[in-house]
């Protein structure tokens, strides 16, 4: 697969996300299934502005945020990322 065929995973490293669990997602090399690593391209990105609209009744609206192929996902953790990425392929 050529590099540009890979789907893009943006891990938000804005301060809100980073300090509320986003930092740990940067260890994706360690926790993702190895086969997923080849299929996606990862990058840290600036604040996605989603942290400005947290709704306390909805956990999914809370940091840390990750954008997978243009779609925003909140309340991210390593297990969830593994699952979402596996669903994507």
């Amino acid at each position, binding site marked *: 697969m050529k590099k540009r065929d890979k789907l893009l995973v943006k891990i938000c490293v*804005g*301060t809100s996300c980073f300090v*509320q*669990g986003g930092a*740990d997602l940067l*260890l994706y090399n360690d926790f993702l299934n190895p086969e997923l690593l080849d299929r996606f391209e990862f990058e840290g990105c*600036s604040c996605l502005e989603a942290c400005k609209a947290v709704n*306390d*009744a909805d956990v999914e609206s809370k940091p840390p945020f990750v954008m997978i192929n243009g779609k925003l996902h909140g309340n991210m953790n390593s297990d969830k990322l593994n699952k979402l990425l596996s669903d994507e392929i």
Partner: protein
Amino acid sequence: MLDMNNQYTRIKSRVYTMVLKSFFNGTLEEDIDKIPFLIIPKDTDPIRCCIYKERAMIRYRIMAFMGVNIEKDDDEMKPLSEYYREIMHKSIPSAPVITTISTACSSCPHDQYLISDACRGCLARPCYVNCPKNAISFANGKAHINAELCIRCGKCMDVCPFHSVLHIPVPCEAACPVDAIKKNNKGVAIIDYTKCISCGKCTRSCPFGAIVERSGLFSALKLLQGKDKVVAMIAPAIDGQFPGNLGQIKQSLLQAGFDEVVEVSEGANITAIKEAAEVVERIEGGEDYMTTSCCPSYMELVNRHLPFLKEKRSTTLSPMGYIASMVKEKDPTCKTVFIGPCLAKRIEGVRLNTVDAVITFSELAALFMAKNIDVREVEASDMGDTTSFEDCREFAVSEGVAGCVVHRLQEGVTLRPMYINGLDAKTFRGMKIWPKRAPVANLVEVMVCEGGCINGPGTIVSPKLALKLRGGKATAPAKAVRS
């Protein structure tokens, strides 16, 4: 210890940010009693019994954040706004730095070993054979542990081929290296402050968030509001805790209202120079070993539990001690705020009269969030000439302190260092016998947090990632870090 980014730490950071936002708005006094309702709205799915208890817990977190000694000063009839007024108008003692929320404590059953259904009552019965107290008997083809006889040595668990022995610990008690946590007659955890060394391990181990640190942030906020110049003293461990480099962290602090930022590593350079001279002098004078003195929790350990080490520990001040006097010497009217990963530093801060407030990285993170400062986006500020002390940023990592001392020895002198990398009950027992069996070393570096300060209770990112973000130039081998 719990994984750092669990539900509880997220709630905490939510509480902190919300309180601070309203503080900077100037509306905290009106808002503060509403915050528990805003964070736990009506339609929330409660984790505990009901939303009312959840809200009560938020109330306690707000109190701890303001620095209230909950154990001592909890008054359920008193509105938060009144606590807030009090906090803003008088200064409260910072010790003890750790307090318990008794209603949050789930009164975990005593530490115990149990035989599960997986037991097959095998022929070899290694559990029975290896139990030093004859606490194991057999009934209905399965092993059974007599709790009265069991001394919780764990031997049966180690030898069972079916992994059928369960160990159910009390997380706070297990985390405490010095046995300072006990239960009262209702089974609620209480801290014995005569034993506590303020290491903060319990605050990070309770899955119910029932043991909390009393934040020092409000003391710092009061200083920032005052007219005096406020100097932020950033601990060596800060590198890797925020998304950005040191220059950007400095700039963010300036934007947050600090007037000047200094690196504690500059003080660490003096600590290392003096310890290098002191250790040589001591060895020449016939002493067998000297320990470092920069870890404040270790200093408490010596004061409270290992008095024989009083004459073995270096008399040098900690990096915080030196940098704070340097800052105050330059400008005696300014106020100093130490920003680090450590709770015990607040105890040390009280002892020194040069440190005006101590806050943690997670509190600073809340401050940045409340002020909408995005560390990664700000223009890096110049750190000045750091060449003389740059290597002392390694004070934050196990083996880094001894490394810096060794680099500052006169030529021709060699030392044999030894490292206490993290204190737990077992290491503590080992240290107790040092008067009889001295460590085979002449410089003993002691860090109560495993891996060093980068694993302190006030940190934000896991030590593994922190090391990576620090550029991997750590002198500590990977083993120093829990993965």
